């Protein structure tokens, strides 16, 4: 049984179709990488799954139970943790306190009391590599550290599914390597992961599956290496002419619906 099943998900913002019928499933233990050009609907998809945005149509099932339109806090307590592309820490709290908030509210296996949540925060802080900075104020953290903190706070919720929204963006090569190790360790801990990423080495490095979104639709889905070499993906990112020059046998051009890039 799929852990998460998304079927025909649609969301429109005014004249822009952010999602135009996305369908995919996530199996337990997978690391699913979602890629796609800017404006393809990746973040909207995560917002719909985590309950911050209500989809116009379609169904999201968690453990074979529909969670479509459920409030975000209830989805969180079911075991779906997420990070934000633009980090959203609690600025007046320290690293440790920020992380503890995840265990205080989100745990599907029983929420912790404040003191216990602080204690439980320490292990995930070490896992994401913020051990040295646990008592630092958030405002003193660098951007990569703030992204680690996002992951720590989500992990403190003991999620079964972790949604990572571009946690590697803006990191240098060394930091990306560290982040990859972190993601692998999280996966080994039994957490299923869905991650949005632009850094291709991440997709190849940790993902078991990849899915390409373009104009709010699923363009292609499959093993990462295959997906990244597909001419349709190259076309989506770099344009039709570039794709034709690269790959002599042209694939049937995909039908995007107007200019959804706005």
């Amino acid at each position, binding site marked *: 049984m799929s852990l998460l099943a998304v079927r025909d998900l649609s969301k429109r913002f005014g004249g822009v179709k952010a999602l135009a019928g996305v369908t995919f499933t996530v199996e337990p233990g997978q690391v699913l990488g979602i890629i796609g050009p800017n404006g393809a609907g990746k973040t909207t998809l995560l917002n719909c799954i985590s309950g911050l945005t209500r989809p116009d149509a379609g169904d999201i099932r968690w453990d074979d139970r529909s969670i479509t339109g459920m409030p975000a806090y209830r989805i969180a307590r079911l075991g779906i943790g997420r990070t934000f592309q633009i980090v959203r820490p609690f600025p007046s*709290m320290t690293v440790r306190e920020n992380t503890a908030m995840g265990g205080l509210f989100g745990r599907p296996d029983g929420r912790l009391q404040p003191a216990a949540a602080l204690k439980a925060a320490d292990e995930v802080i070490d896992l994401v590599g913020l051990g040295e900075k646990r008592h630092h104020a958030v405002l003193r953290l660098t951007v990569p550290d703030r992204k680690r903190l996002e992951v720590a706070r989500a992990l403190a919720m003991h999620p079964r599914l972790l949604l990572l929204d571009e946690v590697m963006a803006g990191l240098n090569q060394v930091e990306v390597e560290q982040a990859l190790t972190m993601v692998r360790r999280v996966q080994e801990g039994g957490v299923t992961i869905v991650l949005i990423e632009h850094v291709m080495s991440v997709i190849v490095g940790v993902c078991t599956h990849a899915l390409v979104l373009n104009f709010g639709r699923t363009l292609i889905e499959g093993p990462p290496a295959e997906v990244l070499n597909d001419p349709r993906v190259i076309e989506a990112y770099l344009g039709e002419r570039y794709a034709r020059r690269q790959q002599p046998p042209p694939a049937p051009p995909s039908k995007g619906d107007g200019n959804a890039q706005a």
Partner: protein
Amino acid sequence: MIAREERVPRSLRRFAVPIGIALLAYVILVPLTSTDTAQQAGLPLLADKLWFRIATTVAMFVVMASAWNIIGGLTGYASFGNVAFFGLGAYTVGVLVSSRGWPFPLALILAPVTASLFALIVGIPLLRLRGHYFAVATLGIGVAVGELVNNLGPLGASTGLFLPIVRSDLLFFYLMLVAAAVAVLSTWLILRTRFGYGLLAIRENEEAAKIIGVNTNLYKVAAFCIAAALTGLAGGIFAQWNSFINQENVFAISDNVQMILMAVVGGAGTVLGPVAGAISLELIIQTLAGGGSKAVYSQIGLGVLLAVCVIFIPRGVIDFFGGQSRLSLQYLRQTLRETSA
């Protein structure tokens, strides 16, 4: 949050706590000897009827500032309509005592109930607004309820309501003092529970609070209702103490502004900040207003003081009791950097 809480008491214990306990003991115990005894003994402040009144007023503002702090300081929703809760509490007691002939204690129990029921009804739609929108909407509620009361015959309309006079400075002083203690203790307790952390999370980043599992709508409404209950309690006591209520004295928007200023100047989001703010500001207001023809200066003085406070000690005067020296250039620089970030 916890780190900040731990940082405050270190030097508080050394200086402020003993002084505070001594003052509190004086304030609580001296009136017990009755005003007459105090007058004979020539004890300062509390032997004086005027000062008794001021002390009761200060306690009343401690309740209002602490209550405002729960929704405005902890949750981050700056309510300009809290005075409506004060007025509703006052009118609950007023109507029940003067028109229905209820005993005051029984009527007083219902004052916080009415206020928080009202908060529940208006809170559910209003707390979906944020920032300025919430502030303006609550301001509207505050004015509207006052105007409504002013035009309702059974509530005395513009004449107001008269309650049978109870002559006891002591009773009302202690009632307000108990209400103040309840307000401060509630804040202290809230900050030690999951509920309190949820409120802080909402203040710091509401979206993030939602996705870690905080039931933000429930928490906000609950905080609003608690604030309303405490404010309504103060209003109920005020009604009997003053024995006359009308729109002007219980639905004054200036009172709402005052409770916000007290909480902010003292230190919004802290337990003792609103207490420090209420005591210092009310005393300053009373002192400046005492000058008769110079009363106009009290407004100017207050304005200047507030501007200075907001710029130089945005975390409130309670922050002065922190570990490091607060009178250094470094503190000023750090403060400016943090608040502009």
